[in-house]
């Protein structure tokens, strides 16, 4: 056994670590949309496309972790 060996459910651990970044990322995206809509409400409709787009792209990274947790279990 190495010094920092981890045993047990590595998939769950990996997914938990993988979800940190996208969690922050989704928060940043929505924060930017809320701030932009608050400063200039007329831009809300135009920004909504990029909100949805950005959210889906960032969320995909978290879901890779979930899929790999199952695929490699």
């Amino acid at each position, binding site marked *: 056994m190495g010094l920092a060996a981890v045993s047990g459910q590595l998939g769950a651990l990996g997914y938990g670590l993988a979800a940190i970044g996208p969690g922050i990322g989704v928060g940043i995206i929505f924060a930017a949309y809320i701030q932009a809509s608050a400063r200039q409400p007329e831009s809300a409709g135009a920004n909504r496309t990029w909100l*949805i787009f950005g959210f889906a792209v960032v*969320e995909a990274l978290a*879901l890779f972790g*979930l*899929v790999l947790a199952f695929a490699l*279990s």
Partner: protein
Amino acid sequence: MKGGSVGQPTFLAEGFPPGVKDFDFQSWIPSLRDSDWGLAFTKITFMVWLAVAIIIVFFLVTYRSPKLVPDRKQWLAESIYGFIREGVAKDVIGHEGLRFAPYLTTLFCFIAVTNIFAIIPLFQISPNSHIAFPAILGIISYVMFIYLGIKKHGAAKYFRTNLFMPGIPWPLYFLITPIEFISTFLTRPVTLAVRLFANMFAGHLMLLVFTLGGVAMLGSANVLVMGLSVFSFLMAIVMTFFEVMVIFLQAYVFAMLTASYIQGAIADEH
């Protein structure tokens, strides 16, 4: 039994905890069950054929005799097509994008209908939770944007402007070109497919967890756990509503990303 920590589960809860095995379906033709062809006739493939039939029949019937002032069915079909044509094809690709509007609408409708099966009773799983179907859709988008780029610019010029972007000092090419190659030509089809697959897989798994977990909690000997199972079923209902948003979001994002890649491929370089 597997769910032993909540007491002695009844026969209803034998599927808990759910896992990858819950996504396997048996062939509908019993004699083919153990062969390779058996998987071609399962509930999943039936759903794919049903989705194709629904889309073809819907658009054919609503456009059988189009009128200038549309009736409700024609209005619905036109709204769906107009939404993708204006919002995705024209907005993202530009004026040239109008010739891709039919394909993008078909893509959006196919993914939306196959995803909707995830929340309809008796089906309750989306075919996109098997990696094969999103993989093929991703490969089609991948081949499409590379083909369009090569047809418009010529193979040498297309790869040169994509991998060795103009306007950058040449030592940076050692850093940027591998990154551009991997991000444009290797990971794009993979992320397209895995995004759709993972969303549908995770959604189905979560619905399974809450539903089967509620049933497992109902079968426990502890009365408190039995009473708390109502929250599990409540969460299953909440997650079903959440699934509706995810379904249409994933269809829209897939179509929009395909349009974005096409736009990147046929963009005119200055």
